[in-house]
């Protein structure tokens, strides 16, 4: 089962996607997944990005599992 990747705000506009799927290899870290996604969607490269796993901010070395819900977004600006 792949992992879902959600985009919001700027990252949704830049990529033209609200959601994509990625295949999950063994020991795929949040940092490695983010690098791979930016390689495939290069418009993201010029932005500082955050990644969450299952609705929690992810540590760089956190391992992604099958079926996880990831999200990639720019620094938040609510309020």
């Amino acid at each position, binding site marked *: 089962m792949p992992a879902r990747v959600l985009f*919001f*705000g700027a990252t949704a506009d830049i990529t033209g996607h609200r959601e994509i799927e990625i295949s999950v290899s063994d020991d795929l870290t949040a940092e490695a997944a983010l690098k791979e996604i930016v390689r495939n969607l290069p418009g993201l490269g010029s932005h500082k*990005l955050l990644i*969450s796993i299952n609705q929690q901010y992810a540590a760089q070395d956190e391992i992604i599992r099958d079926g996880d819900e990831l999200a990639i977004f720019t*620094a*938040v600006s609510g*309020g």
Partner: protein
Amino acid sequence: MDFFELTTEPLDITSVARRVVPPECGATVTLDGYARRFTKDRETGEVRETLYLVYEAYEPMAIKEMEKLVKVAHEQFEIANVGIVHRLGKLEIGETSIVISVAAPHRKDAFAACEWLIRELKRTVPIWKKEVYADGEQWVEGELVTQMS
């Protein structure tokens, strides 16, 4: 009873502020954050006029992050109740985007907690603001919690 909500409906400040009035409290401090027309660029000093705003949230994570903030606020301040309601979608200038209400036995704690909550919310809760100008638009990028790339 704390509450955290996201809504596309216009916000009524008083109904948020007065929803919970704990008997042991003597003050509620309420922030009414609203859409600003003129924004000065932090780097260039140039003033831009905004026509309207659009807010978007990663809704389930935003609710979880608000819950976390309120939990920490209860640990750090002597407060009884917190209500946070954030509006999403299109907002006209002057419309309320966020209401944070903090009820406490004494006002000092309510003021301090309210200030802390809005500051932390702007750093951590996954909500984004798009400013729309006469000649373009941009998603505002805030301060990074941790930078990964």
